[in-house]
C-alpha cells in the first residue's frame, strides 16, 4: 500500500466510525471530535488515539468496545488498538459542524 492508499483507508475507517454513537450525547464519536488520530500501518493494524467527553464517562469502555467491534465487522482479521488520552482535553472546538448543530451550539 502506498501513502495515498493508506490515507484513503484512514478516511474510510473514520467514515465507518460514524456508526459508533456516544449513547449519552447521541452523536457519533467522529462528529463529536472524540477521535484524535487514526493510524493505519498498511498491514492490518489500526491504532486509534481518542478521548471521552469527560474523564468520568461511565460508558468509556463500552464506546471503546463499540469502535473495535465496528471495525472488526468490516475487517475481521485486523488488529485494533485504542489509546485513551485526556490531553488535550476535549472541547467544543473539536466538534464538527453537524455535531454542533445537534448540540445546539
Amino acid at each position: 500500500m502506498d501513502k495515498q492508499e493508506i490515507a484513503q483507508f484512514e478516511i474510510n475507517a473514520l467514515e465507518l466510525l460514524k456508526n459508533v454513537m456516544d449513547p449519552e450525547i447521541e452523536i457519533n464519536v467522529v462528529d463529536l471530535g472524540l477521535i484524535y488520530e487514526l493510524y493505519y500501518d498498511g498491514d492490518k493494524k489500526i491504532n486509534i488515539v481518542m478521548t471521552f467527553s469527560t474523564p468520568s464517562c461511565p460508558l468509556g469502555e463500552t464506546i471503546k468496545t463499540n469502535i473495535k467491534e465496528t471495525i472488526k465487522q468490516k475487517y475481521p482479521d485486523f488488529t485494533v488498538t485504542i489509546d485513551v488520552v485526556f490531553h488535550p482535553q476535549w472541547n467544543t472546538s473539536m466538534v464538527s459542524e453537524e455535531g454542533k448543530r445537534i448540540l445546539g451550539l
Partner: protein
Amino acid sequence: MNGLQTNNAPDSSVVIPHFVFGAINFFVLAIMIILANTNLFEAYFNNKLIAITHMAVLGWATMIVFGSLYQLIPVVFETSLYSEKLAKFTFWISAISVLFLTYSFWVGAFSTLLVYAALLMFFSLLLFVINVVLSYKKSELKNTSSKFIIVAILWLATTELVGTIIALNFKFNFLTVIHLHYLKIHATLGLIGWFLMLIIGVGSTLLPMFLISHNLKYKKLDYSFYMINAGLLGLVINWLFFKNSLFTIVFWTIIVAGILFFVSFIYESYKKRIRKKLDIGMQYSMLAILNILLPILISLVLLIGFNFKFELLSRVVILYGFSIVFGFITTLILGQTYKTLPFIIWLKKYKSLVGKVKTPLPRELYSKQIATIQFYLYLLFLVVVPIGFLLKNNSIIKVGSFSLLAVSILYNINVLKIIFHKVKNIENG
C-alpha cells in the same frame, strides 16, 4: 482513569431491587398522603405525618439512593463494592424494617412496635454503613466527591442513632428533655447530614458529567464541604448543650453559605454546559437545585420567628419539610432515575452486543411522553400543595395529592418499562 471502572460495577441484582422497591414505595407514599387527609393540618409530629415522612425518606428516597450508590461507588471510589452479598442481605433487612417502621408510626404504636422496628432499621443501616466504609477503605482515591459521600454515610449512622434513642425513649422514658427537641436534631441530621451531603457528593460528579461542562472551580465544593459540616456539627452541639439562639443563627448562616457554594458550582456547570438542550432527567435535576433555595427561605422565616401561633408555626414547619423532601430530594431522584437507570439496564442488556448489532439508545428504554406528562403533573403537585397548606384548604391539597398519585403511577410504569426491557428486533449493524 476515573470512571472507566465499569468492570467494578456490581451485579444488577444488587442494584435493581432497590429501584423496584423504591418505586413501589413512592406509589404507597402517594396513597398514604391521600389517606392521611386532614391529619396533614395537625401538629407536625402527628403519627400519620411521621409515617409519611419515614416512608418518603427511607422507603422511597434512601432506597433509590442505596441502589444508585451501589452502582456509583465503583465510579467515585474507583474500587468494587466491599461485599455484594452483604448489600443483598442489607436490602431485605431494610425493606422489612422500613415497612415495619412506617406501619408502627401509622397505627401510633409508639411504645410497643416502634422500638423493635427502629432497632431493626438501625441494624440494616449499620450494615449499609459498614459496606460503604469498607469499600472506601479499599479505595486509594480520596477526592472531593468521595469525601462528601463517606461523611454523609457517617451522618446517616448518627441520624439513625438519634432516631433509635427517640424510639427507645417512647418505651423506657429515660430522656430528661422533651422528645421533640431530639426530633429536630434527628431531622436536621438526616436532611442536611445524610441527604444534602450525599447529593452534593454524587451531584458534583454526575451533574457536570451529564451537562458536559469542563474547567469548573472545584474549590467551591471544598468550601461547601467544610462549611456545611462545621455548621451542622456546631448546630447539633448547640442544640444539645447550649440552646443559644444567637449560635443557632451563626451556624445556620455557615450551613447556608456552604449550600450556596454548591449551588454556585452547579450554576457554573450549567452556564458552561456544552449540551444546551436539557433532557427530561436534567430538567428535573436543575429544578431540584433551584428548589434548594425554598427550604433556606422557609428556615429563615422560622428562625426569625414572627411570633407565629403554634398552629401556623406547625404548618410552616411541615412546609419546610415538604420543600426539602419533595421540592429538592424527590425532584432530583425523579430526574436522576431517568439519567441512571436506563444506563444501568442498557449496559446489562447491550454491553456484549455493541458494535455487533444495532442497539437502541438508553433513553429509548422509557417513554419520553410518559416522563414529560409526569414532569408537569409533578410541577402541579409542587405548586398546589403548599398553596393548600397556607390556605388550609383540603380540596386544594387533594388536587395535589392525586397529582402525586398519578406521578407515582407514571413513574412506576416507566421504571418497570426500563427494568423489563427486552432485547428485540436486532438487525446487523
